[in-house]
């Protein structure tokens, strides 16, 4: 995760006019793409829990819990599909 952030900062700092234009050109994060899934899951969990939680005080912990649930379930689903592909 820290490597990914460092990579983004380096891209933005090194002569942006010549190499990379924000929002027009994609960032070269092909080697770090897996780290980008975590903020996506947390965003989904945060919106869901903000809509459903009776009190806002519960939102941070519930968001973390739901985010981890989704991450674990996706990992299990991925491992299962990988197993199916490898065995069949």
């Amino acid at each position, binding site marked *: 995760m820290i490597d990914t952030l460092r990579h983004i900062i380096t891209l933005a700092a090194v002569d942006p006019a010549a190499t990379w*234009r924000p929002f*027009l050109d*994609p*960032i070269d994060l092909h080697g770090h793409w897996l780290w980008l899934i975590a*903020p*996506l899951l947390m965003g*989904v969990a945060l*919106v869901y829990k903000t809509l459903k*939680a009776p009190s806002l005080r519960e939102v941070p912990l519930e968001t973390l819990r739901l985010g981890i649930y989704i991450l674990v379930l996706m990992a299990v689903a991925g491992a299962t599909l990988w197993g199916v592909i490898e065995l069949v």
Partner: protein
Amino acid sequence: MNHDFQAQKSALPWPVVALVAWLVPGLGHLLIGRRDRAVILAATIYGMFIAGLFMGGIDVIDPVGDRLWFGVGQVHAGALAIGVAGVRMAMDVKAEAAPYGSPEAVPEYQPSVGRVNELGTLYCALAGGLNLLCVLDVIGRITAAEEQRLREAPSSRGRASEATS
């Protein structure tokens, strides 16, 4: 955790609130008086959409080539998604109108490919999907309040007539 579904009254009719909520993420919740939640929803949905655009570039919003992703997900991020799609299409039209082989015939943006394109597209599409969830939540809360008011109205009239007799 118990999830609540509180009915929320609105001064405006629900179709108007739903349209406003669809156009500007978080505004629907603001209109029904859930200010703090509106701020969180707006920040998260805009944050996800802008993050997707930032990592994949404007190429991740493609209403012509990626109709399904745009039509089912991204467009529901509201006015911002429609605006970005308009800018992208204007760039494509400008490039197509330029003479073949000239520098203007190449679009101003750099096409994105691979995982970065996939994740950028997914971030923007999920931002739209989550805004749609917010719109449905707002509609549900307003219509629940309306139903509650209609249920209570006959009983209160009955109590009033009993009191007068």
